[in-house]
């Protein structure tokens, strides 16, 4: 919240749209603003009434550079919008930078997402440091329900809950990297970086970046599934394959490759396999290991076929390992297996576990 917990003193709040962006149809702007207000109205007793003239509590406008509040915008990108906390005069007013290109989709800046964030300010919400929260100050695109538990708790602390609230599933809080019980969904290399998937987020580890960067999967790849089961890099083909359920996607760098998603059964897995738990490519052998429950499959990348004799037992072929794997990655002759909150360093050549560490030691914890 803002200092002094600024809020509207009534639950009936008025708004007015003073002008429209030429980037979108008028009806699209109306819809984006109304939907954004409803996001907050759904979890509070607040009701929003649209005015067409006169002074409304929340005056909404599009402007460029200096636009009348001595708080100028900065041209394309950078600052997208701002809003003032509840109060008289300029309080509650919400301004969008007309130098941005506003859209209904993920192509540039999605008006609904920015409006929902700004209207949060107009109702008394300050910035959240949770990257999964709508009130996080940095723009990211995501589909689905926009509020996290942090947002809902915040707005309800000001206005209380909606007595007629329908069941909503808030966005999960971003996982905390140093949680000692943290486990991972998938780990892969991507052109020298390490990408770690957990719930709807991923961490990006770059050798020259001291701290991992956490982002919503949907922000980077809106069309892939919001949760990832497994991923591996094939550096020879410069591809990263991402598995979710019975589908798989391919990335070239950060770009999705056309022609995907494909069914995982194209790799030669039987139809009874409904998900891949972990995947790893062994550069030295050209084989990709796909782990499912207590077994694994070996896929020959050059032949494009599954090796004979598969599936094989994880426990028998990787002595010292747990019988199931959440994620796996290969570095210089060592396989790093992740299961629950533990990480196993496995020597591929001497066929034994060398070290057991906490899973999140990879995140400098």
């Amino acid at each position: 919240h803002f200092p002094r917990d600024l809020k509207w003193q009534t639950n009936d709040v008025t708004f007015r749209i003073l002008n429209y962006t030429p980037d979108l149809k008028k009806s699209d702007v109306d819809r984006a603003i109304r939907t954004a207000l409803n996001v907050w109205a759904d979890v509070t007793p607040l009701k929003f009434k649209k005015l067409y003239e006169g002074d409304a509590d929340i005056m909404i406008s599009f402007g460029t550079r200096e636009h009348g509040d001595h708080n100028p915008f900065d041209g394309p990108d950078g600052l997208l919008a701002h809003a003032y906390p509840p109060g008289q005069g300029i309080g509650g007013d919400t301004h969008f930078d007309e130098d941005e290109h506003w859209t209904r989709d993920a192509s540039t800046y999605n008006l609904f997402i920015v409006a929902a964030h700004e209207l949060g300010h107009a109702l008394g919400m300050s910035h959240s440091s949770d990257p999964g929260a709508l009130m996080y100050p940095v723009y990211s695109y995501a589909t689905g329900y926009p509020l996290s538990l942090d947002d809902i708790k915040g707005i309800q602390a000001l206005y209380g809950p909606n007595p007629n609230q329908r069941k909503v599933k808030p966005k999960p809080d971003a996982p905390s990297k140093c949680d000692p019980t943290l486990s991972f969904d998938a780990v892969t290399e991507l052109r020298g970086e390490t990408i770690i998937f957990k719930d709807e987020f991923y961490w990006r580890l770059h050798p020259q970046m001291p701290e991992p960067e956490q982002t919503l999967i949907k922000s980077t790849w809106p069309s892939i599934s919001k949760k990832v089961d497994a991923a591996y890099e094939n550096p020879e083909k410069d591809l990263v394959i991402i598995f979710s359920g019975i589908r798989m996607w391919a990335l070239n760098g950060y770009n999705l490759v056309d022609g995907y998603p494909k069914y995982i059964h194209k790799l030669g897995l039987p139809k009874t396999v409904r998900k891949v738990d972990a995947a790893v490519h062994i550069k030295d052998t050209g084989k990709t290991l796909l782990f499912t429950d207590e077994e694994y499959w070996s896929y020959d990348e050059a032949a494009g076929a599954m090796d004979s004799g598969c599936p094989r037992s994880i426990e028998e072929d990787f002595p010292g390992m747990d019988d199931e794997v959440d994620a796996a990655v290969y570095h210089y002759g060592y396989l790093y297996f992740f299961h629950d909150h533990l990480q196993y360093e496995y020597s591929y050549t001497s066929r034994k576990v060398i070290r057991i560490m906490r899973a999140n030691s990879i995140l400098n914890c």
Partner: protein
Amino acid sequence: LPLPSEERWLLAEKYLRRFYHLPNGLQGGQTSSGDFQNKLKEMQRFFNLEVTGNLDDNTLALMKEARCGVPDVAEYN
């Protein structure tokens, strides 16, 4: 280590002034003043970055991202 270029410093100063109420003036040159470092640490703490008070690549990358114009601390005057 290479010193951050003037452009990086200007961007960081502008960012901290706008979002973390870094006082105007007195920041110039390529040495970081106490105020600058404290505000930078405040920003790094807010974004769960490594709190160093130094203008590292990670911090600068975050400063370049598209964002909301409302300050992360306190309110508008």
